[in-house]
């Protein structure tokens, strides 16, 4: 009996009365954090919208120069990874810690793939001289106004990739801890909140993808 309760006590911080309170606190904390992140990205989306209304043609032309195929593959990868994260939470809740560990590792791996593909995109754009501040000399009429599109594109995708990178680090650590049996059906809040964070990263991309890759190609 005492052995069964030891890991629970070890996982509970002193300020909490019981495990339920601790779990509730961490999940609520992550939701509040997600709210701040939404506003963080919100500034970029509002800035993007304002500039787009001002320069519709330049934004359409800029959007058309992004890599639709890679962008779509990245979207698919993030969606699948989010699904894996959700499954990991489910498994760890049912006590299947080893399975959850593999799923978390898979999520992290897909995150890395996303970053690599985005790196390939950035590299191609560098070759085409589309990166303001580093190498920017595209030809054609809207080239100057298009600069704002590309500035925003790099700021938005850059901040998003930063979030992906942080997520990958968190997920890898969790996968390692899960493989050592650190979680159980009684204690799984870290997996749950990290999965929430990963869903946020996914959802932000769900807004980036149409704004950057799709809308410009409609005309």
């Amino acid at each position, binding site marked *: 009996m005492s052995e069964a309760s030891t890991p629970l006590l070890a996982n509970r*911080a*002193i*300020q*909490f*009365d019981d495990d339920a*309170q601790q779990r*509730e*606190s961490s999940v*609520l*904390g992550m939701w*509040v*954090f997600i*709210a*701040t*992140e939404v*506003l*963080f*990205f*919100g*500034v*970029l989306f*509002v*800035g993007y919208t*304002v*500039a787009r209304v*001002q*320069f519709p043609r330049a934004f359409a032309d800029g959007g058309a120069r992004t890599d639709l195929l890679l962008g779509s593959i990245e979207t698919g990868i993030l969606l699948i990874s989010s699904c894996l994260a959700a499954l990991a939470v489910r498994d760890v809740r049912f006590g299947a810690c080893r399975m959850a560990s593999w799923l978390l590792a898979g999520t992290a791996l897909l995150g890395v793939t996303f970053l690599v593909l985005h790196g390939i995109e950035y590299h191609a754009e560098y070759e085409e001289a589309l990166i*303001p*501040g*580093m190498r920017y000399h595209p030809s054609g009429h809207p080239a*100057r*106004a298009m*600069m*704002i599109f590309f*500035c*925003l594109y*790099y*700021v938005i995708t850059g901040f998003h990739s930063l979030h992906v990178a942080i997520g990958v680090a968190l997920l890898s650590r969790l996968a390692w801890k899960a493989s050592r049996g650190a979680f159980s059906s009684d204690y799984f809040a870290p997996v749950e909140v990290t999965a929430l964070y990963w869903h946020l990263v996914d959802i932000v991309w769900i807004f980036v993808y149409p704004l950057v890759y799709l809308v410009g190609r409609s005309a």
Partner: protein
Amino acid sequence: MNSTDRTVPVDNYLTAGEPGLAGWLCTHDHKRIGILYAIGITFFFFLGGIAATLIRLNLIVPAGALMSAETYNKAFTFHGVVMVWFFLIPSIPATLGNFLLPLMIGARDVAFPRLNLFSWYLYVGGGLFTIGALLLGGVDTGWTFYTPFSTMFSNTHVVLAVIGVFVVGFSSILTGLNFIVTVHTMRTVGMHWFRLPLFVWALYATSLVMVLATPVLAMTLSLIALERLFGVGIFDPALGGDPLLFQHFFWFYSHPAVYIMILPAMGVASELITCGVRRRIFGYRFMAWSMMAIAVIGFMVWGHHMFVAGQSMYAGIVFSILSFVVAVPSAIKVFNWVATLHKGTIDFHAPMLYALGFVGLFMLGGLTGLFLAATALDVNLTDTYFVVAHFHYIMVGGSVMAYLGGIHYWWPKITGRLYPEGPARFAAILMFFGFNLTFFPQYLLGYLGMPRRYHAYPEPFQWLNVLSSAGASILAASYLMPLCYLGWSLWRGAAAGPNPWRATGLEWTTTSPPPVHNFPLPPVVNEGPYQYCP
């Protein structure tokens, strides 16, 4: 008086735990972190105060006695940046809030103690960046960092200052997050939402504003830094970017930031007043809801900073109406304080004097806010000293008076010692007079048309400026006084006992200073706050 014994308990949060400096710098105890904040905030307050002194000295003579125009710009920028972000925003929430929130709801600590300590380190780190920017030569943009000046023309250390504010912004976000979660999940048995003390309500409303506004500032400042470093053109008119967009983003945070400063002050004033008259606060629920209303409506009024900046007339009208609307819950609060005081036996101890000073100054500041919310008047008063006087009345008159009142009121709880009442009352009254002498002439100056941020001015404005500077020296003396007698009381003050004010509230049921985890046993609450029986 109190029957419980009047010695400082040996086993308290100050003596227990890791000894020495490491014990403080690695502490997870919300009470110690509150004190760490208090030390940092006092330091920055006097740093910003030095800049203010330089400004007031410079303006004694019309030609600008002390500084060149550039140095003057750097002085008021430093004053603004330090006072707004390193003093006013964290002052009450991070010190009194950190110390009292868990005590008031009967919790052992905040929900995330390690995050709490991390917030303090972010605060210090951000401060170091800002001081670094000062040491390397300063910044001349004003605390608002308006583009395109800050991004294209200023050749001072904008990036460093912006990073400093960015970092301290995260400190404020994390504190807000911690408080929200703590209020939601850590309340003790029987502590329903409508049994929360009003100070807790105030902290909760403030935390919502911190969490939902600060990220916008953080991103906006990152964009400034990126624009200076890499030429991202979103605010750059030369590239087709929009400087007005910066102002929208900036004030979307910075107007609610005023409520980050004033809401906790309102909470403190409510506690002080209800204890000083020994009566229940009038209209408790209205007080709580009006705080939430201020927090919510406060998000919708930022456009009144841009009546003359080039936004559309219709936007101006809407923002003007909303700015009048946000005055309604503020007025509710003032009326309720007055109703609480009405026909009461007022105990004019120092915290009460500070609270009354707060109500007076807040009223004058709030009423002149209505002048500025009226578009027609604002066109004339924008960027004059009238605006300077208005926001100093709210932010300094309101929030600093309440902060000091709160410090005095909870001083016995924090230190276990009583402070000398005589000097404290004298300082409170001196502060009220010094404050009015400093800032009331600025209303007149602004009304007569003296623009803000000028290092020299025409002859006729001199006598009002001299009055203002004279007031500033009185104000400075009244700020130094508490430092002396509160410091003295740490060694020589009489032991306070658990409840020297005979106040209600959970924080007064534990020892002064409280033990490490606040209560020997989790308290149980079965009545509302403020059950005073006179």
